[in-house]
């Protein structure tokens, strides 16, 4: 009986031959290497989180948010103005960029889907996401700041340019997520294009759009380069959106160069606040997506 099976050749049980053993152990070895490399990247992330917490948490007091940055070399004080400045500039940027981005997304996905112009808009939005953020800052500097001086307004416009393509592309994805059958049903019931968009498509796409907006907020809050030459920095409370304004990210950048302990620690505390804001917004955004 055995000899019959052996003579059949292909039916021989090959799982014990040395060659197969080598192949499968090589495969297992590679799996471990792959897992090891993946876990390796956790180390820097853990290190960043650990360092920000260790250096930032001891300074975290309510007075940080209610007082102004200290003069160079002296201790005490906080970065209340920078927190407010960041909030003002990010919300203004959202206020400018969100309508434009969402409307453009509606155009390319609802009114004119698949046309050459829409494809061009989509492609240009993708290119805009790749533009270095410092270019936005320089552009706004030479268009606005040269004539009107440093201001929170200029900073928010630079941030708006930065997040516009993000909002456009995520809104477009949100609109794409709305089933086509809904639009057909709505049109079939006699709704105009406007009614279909306004009453059917937009409410359906709203949660996913919110996710996109929150990702944009997270991106804008963390950016330094666009506000560096537009909003500049200020050691005082924000007066109006026409004046130079402090922001958390520029504060971190400025204080990281100063060789005094208190300022360096303040930079870490500001990082903690900034990472907190950014992480909370982006985690909420992702939870919103996952729910759906």
């Amino acid at each position, binding site marked *: 009986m055995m000899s019959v099976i052996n003579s059949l050749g292909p039916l021989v049980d090959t799982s014990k031959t040395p060659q197969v053993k080598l192949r499968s152990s090589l495969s297992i070895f590679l799996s471990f290497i792959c897992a090891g490399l*993946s876990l390796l*990247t956790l180390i820097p992330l853990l290190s960043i989180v650990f360092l920000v917490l260790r250096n930032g948490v001891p300074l975290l007091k309510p007075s940080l948010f209610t007082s102004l940055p200290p003069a160079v070399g002296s201790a005490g004080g906080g970065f209340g103005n920078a927190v407010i400045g960041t909030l003002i500039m990010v919300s203004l940027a959202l206020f400018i960029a969100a309508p*434009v981005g969402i*409307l453009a997304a509606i155009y390319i996905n609802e009114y004119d889907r698949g046309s050459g*112009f829409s494809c061009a808009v989509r492609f240009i939005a*993708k290119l805009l996401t*790749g533009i270095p953020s410092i270019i936005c800052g320089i552009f706004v500097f030479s268009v606005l700041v040269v004539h009107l001086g440093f201001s929170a307004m200029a900073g928010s416009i630079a941030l708006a340019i930065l997040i516009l393509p993000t909002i456009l592309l995520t809104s477009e994805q949100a609109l794409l997520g709305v089933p086509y059958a809904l639009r057909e049903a709505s049109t079939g019931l006699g709704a105009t*294009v406007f009614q279909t968009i306004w009453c059917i498509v937009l409410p359906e796409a709203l949660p996913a759009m919110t996710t996109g907006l929150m990702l944009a907020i997270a991106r804008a809050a963390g950016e330094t380069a666009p506000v560096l030459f537009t909003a500049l920095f200020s050691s005082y409370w924000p007066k109006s959106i026409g004046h130079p304004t402090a922001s958390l990210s520029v504060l971190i950048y400025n204080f990281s160069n100063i060789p005094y302990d208190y300022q360096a620690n303040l930079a870490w505390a500001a990082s903690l606040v900034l990472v907190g804001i950014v992480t909370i917004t982006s985690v909420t955004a992702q939870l919103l997506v996952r729910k759906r």
Partner: protein
Amino acid sequence: MKEKKRAKRLSWSHPADWLYVLCWTAAAATVALLAWIVLEIFSQALPSLRKFGLQFFIRASWNPNTDHFGALPFLVGTTMSSVFALLIALPLGIAIAIFLSEDFLPPVFRQSIRFVVELLAAIPSVVYGLWGAAIVIPIVRKGGNWLSNSLGFIPLFQGPVFGNSMLAASLILALMVLPTITAISRNALVDVPKTLREGAYALGATRWEAIFGVILPTASPGIVAATILALGRAMGETMAVAMLIGNSTRLTFSLLAPAGTLASLLANQFAEAEGLQVSSLMHAALLLMLLTLLVNATGEIILRRTQRITVKIRQR
């Protein structure tokens, strides 16, 4: 008169009209914005373009006192730092992408690792810079001494050793582009048709024979696109690089010496620049923008083409 007014109001109160107009304006504004940015920076760069022309690319001095500007050191710095960042990040990113797209782990763990990698993308650039100054710089200083002692005969590792150096900037850039590479490569790997995988396993391939023989080659255009898009990001990254690279204006090919990139040059000098220096900085900005636009456009086109191809394979 009254009726005319009414008719006008009626036509505007017909909602489809104004929404269409608004939407079209917004879409056109996005296109116009890119054109405006390019034109504005080009026009600001004109004086420097006229004065230096092509010499701007080959001259290795950046001297505001004598008004001699050449971007070669920064072009070299931008290229070297981003290429080295990719050399480090690429194997890691692809390993994570494979780890997350194959069934090594139950979905819960895969989701959480993906989540962690996405968090890496959310950390602001300045915080990377701050962390790099505290952790990466000392490591680079120590490792750099060892490198220059043992491999100093290679120009790449020539001393003297500095903490704030091209190597430090490349390391931080590698960490920063990792999420880009991972996310896009993972999508490419997940998009590999199931039938190809099953075919490989049915022919008796082990897991890694299937990965190297079938899955990676099929996903390779997507991975190439991921690499190119990550290159674009690395070239444009400003703050973390400006905080770690040492901001030298001298031409250097050593990884261990301070250097500068186009982006870090802008971050450092733009605030205090005057006269021709402003125009030369704009010239550098134009260069940086055109380079990133070119790189990103290439990446996007490759990505789009691969997506079209996978859709075709699916339909077959």
